[in-house]
């Protein structure tokens, strides 16, 4: 069957649309790249019986390394990884070389994504020039150029005065500051979670408080500025308390969790015997913290799931643990990981789980999310909920094969991805 065209009739799928709260078997029609209500029998039919259809899966935290670090990933390979993983929208972090801290780079990334046509890229601009934490970047002009939010991800905005200024700007631009929360002094010298395993292995420890101290500070600054804060990749119990406090106060504070923190604990560092594939920032936490994070996602305290896809070259990850870079290549295991954790254990309904990958990131980013409403762009993913598969990084479309999930068995996988009515992936094969 042909994969080209922008008009389809998808029959028999269980449609999970968090926008309207639909979870039912429906036929879905796409004409000229948008969802439509009518049932035109002349359109090519896609038999999706047994599959789930979720509109516009979004990963609001990825690193595509382009420009400047294309040996790790580029916009083409990252886009293919997104399509393979089932994603139709990704938000790219600005810690490239040079840093995305000027409007022209935001425009360039958007244009390049449109040329590639595999995934919608919503660039995130830097909070400070060069991510140096000293002077605000041109946030207004980057927002005009299409920056969806602002972050110095990879580093925190450590200077409280600069963070105060950034948050005060965020409210006027209606864009969040996405903070990588980490106290640089407590973090210094660490390469894994500080606890029994780091102390046994003799690796420098990063206490959970290195993260939570910064989240508490930022919550106070949101109270001061009435700014908009999104806390990236939360991993520490103290951070959860800070987010709970902020939400109870009615502040504009949201939070995300990353799949590796939900699927693995710091035991993985010992199991992988010092291989740096387990090295990630924030670090993998002990099982009790992992469970607390799972509960926070289940209860709704955590708004969004996002991969923090961080590809690196194999040579870099082969360095000794202290020297190797932080990060896990996560786009192609994201869906399977969170489906395994939350659906496999019956913690969330599919509708509630997928809201955290669709409607919620849109809400955090102050974008409208229309699900399969007529007239909405036909961005959708077909998912085989029963697919049991083993992670093989060699099969990734991403250039980064760095993942401690290698060899893990996951249940649930995207089998087709559509952006604007065009298939970008079918049966694990990226089209383009």
């Amino acid at each position, binding site marked *: 069957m042909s994969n080209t065209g922008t008009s389809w009739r998808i029959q028999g799928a269980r449609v999970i649309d968090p926008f309207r709260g639909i979870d039912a078997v429906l036929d879905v029609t796409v004409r000229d790249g948008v969802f439509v209500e009518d049932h035109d029998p002349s359109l090519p039919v896609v038999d999706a019986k047994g599959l789930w259809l979720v509109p516009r899966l979004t990963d609001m935290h990825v690193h595509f390394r382009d420009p400047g670090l294309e040996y790790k990933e580029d916009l083409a390979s990252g886009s293919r990884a997104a399509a393979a993983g089932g994603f139709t929208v990704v938000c790219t972090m600005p810690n490239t070389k040079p840093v995305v801290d000027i409007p022209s780079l935001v425009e360039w990334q958007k244009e390049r994504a449109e040329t590639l046509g595999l995934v919608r890229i919503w660039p995130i601009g830097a909070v400070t020039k060069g991510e140096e934490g000293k002077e605000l970047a041109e946030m207004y002009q980057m927002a005009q150029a299409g920056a969806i939010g602002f972050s110095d991800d990879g580093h925190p905005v450590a200077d409280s005065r600069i963070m105060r200024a950034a948050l005060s700007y965020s409210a006027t631009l209606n864009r969040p500051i996405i903070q990588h929360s980490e106290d640089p002094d407590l973090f210094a010298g660490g390469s894994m979670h500080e*606890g*029994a395993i780091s*102390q*046994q*292995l*003799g*690796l*420098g420890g990063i206490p959970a408080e290195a993260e939570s101290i910064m989240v508490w500070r930022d919550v106070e600054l949101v109270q001061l500025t009435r700014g908009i804060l999104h806390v990236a990749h939360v991993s520490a119990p103290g951070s959860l308390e800070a987010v709970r406090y902020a939400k109870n106060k009615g502040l504009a504070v949201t939070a995300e969790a990353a799949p590796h923190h939900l699927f693995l604990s710091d035991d993985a560092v010992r199991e992988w*015997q*010092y*291989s740096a594939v387990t090295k990630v920032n924030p670090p993998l936490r002990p099982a009790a913290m992992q469970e607390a994070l799972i509960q926070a996602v289940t209860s709704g305290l955590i708004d969004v799931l996002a991969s923090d896809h961080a590809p690196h070259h194999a*040579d870099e990850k*082969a*360095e*000794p*643990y*202290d*020297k190797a870079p932080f990060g896990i290549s996560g786009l192609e295991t994201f869906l399977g990981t969170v489906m395994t954790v939350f659906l496999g254990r019956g913690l969330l309904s599919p509708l509630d789980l997928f809201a955290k990958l669709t409607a919620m990131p849109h809400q955090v980013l102050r974008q409208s999310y229309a699900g399969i409403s007529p007239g909405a762009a036909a961005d959708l993913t077909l998912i085989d909920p029963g697919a049991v598969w083993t992670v093989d990084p060699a099969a990734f479309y991403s250039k980064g094969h760095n993942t401690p999930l290698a060899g893990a068995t996951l249940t649930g996988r995207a089998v087709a991805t559509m952006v604007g009515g065009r298939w970008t992936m079918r049966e694990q094969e990226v089209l383009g």
Partner: protein
Amino acid sequence: MKDLLTLEHLSAQDIEELLDLSENLGEIVDRPIKKLPTLRGKAVVNLFFEPSTRTRNSFELAAKYLSADVINVQPSGSSVEKGETLWDTADNLVQMGIDAAIIRHKVSGVPQQLAQMVSIPIINAGDGMHEHPTQGLLDMLTLRQAKGRIDGLRVAIVGDILHSRVARSDIWALRALGADVVLIGPPSLMPDSFRQLSHVTVTTDLKEGLQGVDAIQVLRLQKERQTGGDIPSLWEYRARWGVTAHSLQWAKPDAIIMHPGPQNRGVEIDSDILDSSRSWVGRQVRNGLAVRMAVLFRLLGGAHNE
């Protein structure tokens, strides 16, 4: 046993056997001709990515007393400085016929990683804050000689436990051999999870910690702990945790003193203690040679293993 990477993963029997072998091989140091033919035709490399004099010399002599050929590779001036990865460095040596590599590296875990990549025996001569297994073995040998046993002893380790690979190797070996361990040191330099270990007591109070101990291992205090902000001053450290004639009275009357060296006299330990009859520090150095011979003998397939 292919490698010696940790003591944590050795059984009491493994350790005892290595100590027995060390006793036998150690006698060679007293002979007029210090040479056994055991490792004739074997080549050993000392790969020291961190400065060391004592341990490197000890390994080199141990190998030479057993008739092995030894080369020393240090990062300065080598291909490592030209950007070669240490894995490539090791592979080159394997290609040249090296039979075993002794490695020291400032990053924990490097010997383990190397052992997975190459088929030759790897001997950990100290990795980061993780382990220093031959130091642990020589400490056990010294204790056994001084006290006739290790089972049932109470042994204090005093100092910067957090950053000490010596402390970790000692802790695992002492627990395996049936001793109780008391860890004493500044709260800022104490890994708090060690409180959860069986047969381990943690305290910041030197007086309390030394009560009833049979031996005291005094760790070197690195001066950068002060500049790094972990302790206020060497002088204050000495006042609280220095092993002096005064503090020694809290231990058993026959308690022995050990120190992995090099010592900061007047900081963590006073000269009158170090040079007294209760000090086994000189014997530790001698035993270091013996255990390194034993390890090389065991891993390189001395006659017994052929």
